[in-house]
Structure formats: C-alpha cells, structure tokens
C-alpha cells in the first residue's frame, strides 16, 4: 500500500483527535471551542480530499471540452458546513459570555465547585 494515498486521511484523523482531546480534557470553555473548530476543519479536509481528481481544475466551466474538473459536490457541502460552523461558534461564544456573567469564571472546574457549594 502506498502511504501517500492515505496521508491526507491520517492527517485528518490526527487533527480530529487533537480537537477531540481539547474538547474532553481542557476545562477552559474558550479552549473547548478552539478544539471544536479544529475538529470541524478536519472534517472539511476529509471531504475536499475526496473530491480531488488528478489533473483536475476548479469546477468552473471552460470552453475546452477535454478539461477534467474536480468533483464540485463536496465543495458545495463544505461551503454550507463552514458557514453553519461559524453560526454555531457564535452561539457557543455567546453562551460563554453569559456563563462568565453568571459565575464570574469560564473554567469548568470552578463552575462545578460553585454549583456544588464546595468553594
């Protein structure tokens, strides 16, 4: 098996797991959102990797009938995903601001202590 054929997928998995680790292991809420963003981008890379065709060009029609185009479908799906991803990031950040107003902290451990009254 040629490793270059799977290099993109393995980098996707590396980035995805870096984001996943940040989401579950870090207590800071903004850090969790950064992790979520890295996770999201790795999915974009997976989709765009699959759409590539060797010798292909961007899917914008040209007069030359022998042109090979890359697959436009993953591009459309990821275009939608990027914009939706930013909308969810904005909502998550608004929640972080509200949590900071209510608790005075954005650390998960401190919020847990305040809720259980052990501080």
């Amino acid at each position, binding site marked *: 098996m*040629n490793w*270059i*054929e*799977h*290099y*993109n997928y393995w*980098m996707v*998995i590396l*980035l*995805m*797991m*870096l984001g*996943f*680790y940040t989401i*579950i*292991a*870090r*207590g*800071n809420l*903004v*850090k969790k959102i*950064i*992790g979520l*963003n*890295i996770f999201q*981008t790795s999915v*974009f890379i997976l989709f*765009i990797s699959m*759409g590539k*065709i060797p010798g*292909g060009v*961007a*899917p*914008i*029609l040209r007069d030359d009938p022998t042109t090979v*185009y*890359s*697959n*436009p*479908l993953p*591009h*459309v799906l990821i*275009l*939608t995903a*990027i*914009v*939706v*991803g*930013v*909308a969810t990031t*904005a*909502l998550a950040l*608004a929640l*972080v*601001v*509200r949590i*900071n107003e209510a608790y005075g902290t*954005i650390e998960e*451990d*401190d919020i847990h202590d305040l809720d259980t009254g052990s501080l």
Partner: protein
Amino acid sequence: MSVVIDILLLGLMGITAIAAIRMKNLFAAVMLTGIYSLLSALWFLILDAADVSFTEAAVGAGFSTVLMLSTLTLTRSAEKPSRHSPILPLFVVVVTGAILVYATLDMPGFADPEAPIHTHVAPHYIEKSEAEIGVPNIVTSVLASYRGFDTLGETTVIFTAGVGVLLLLGIGRRREDGDE
C-alpha cells in the same frame, strides 16, 4: 508538485493546531487558530476548491477570530491548568484514532478517479449544469439550484443562531437592567 505542497501544508496545520492547544494564553491560542484557518484556506485552493477557500479565509480566519477575540475581552485571557489527570482523555483519543485509522484502510486512495464519489451525481452536474442552469461556476449551480433547499436550511440555521445570540446577549440583559 502539488502533492508536496499538500503534505507540507497539512504538516504545518498539525504543528499550528498542537501549538494552539498547548498555549496557556488564550489570545495567542486564538491568533494561532486564525493562522490555522488561513493555512487550511490555502490548502483548499491547492485542491481546486476555490469557493471553499475564500469562504474559509473570510469566515473561518476572519469572522470567527474576531468573535473569539471579542469574547476574550468580555471574559478573561488566561487559562488555568486543569485539575484532572489527562490519562483517561488520552486513552479515549488514542483508541478512537486507532479505530479511525483502521477504517481508512478500506477508503479509496487519495485522488483516485475511480472512487465511488465521482461516479454518481457529480458527472451529471459537470456535463448538464451549463444547459440546465447556465452559470459557469458549477459550485454556484449546485448550491443555489440543484441543492437550493440545503441552502435554505443553512440560512435557517444561521437565522436561528443569530436570534439565539441576540436573546443571550441583547434582549435578556436589557430586561434585567429594567428590573433593578
């Protein structure tokens, strides 16, 4: 040549992501996320996804970095070290990653023109979209016409998120001020 750029850019993205995650100063971490997004925009361009590239550069690297920076000015910019041991999360992540790597062994190779993704609706879009829609950019034809309902759903999600942000930060706070 483009394969070399592909490998280099993805390697740089991995390094930037690790640096962003390790950084205790959140301002620096957010700036590194911006660099990470710009690198991914560059990578999309190498892989022929021009529309995705400029959306990522404008929205991912620009807008979401601004949102995160404004959140940091409203909250705080230093991260406290976690009190929990990282062993369990590391174990979960390594196991999940190993399963995913095992799953990729069945995937068609990178840039394989015979992959199933290239044999269903995509040839139809490429051959017929000029006659059926008349826009030279195939991505635009698919986004606005063939999959127009998807885009309608997308705008609904953005509208809902916008209303949510306004309710969380705008209207709710004003009412609290009125009560006092």
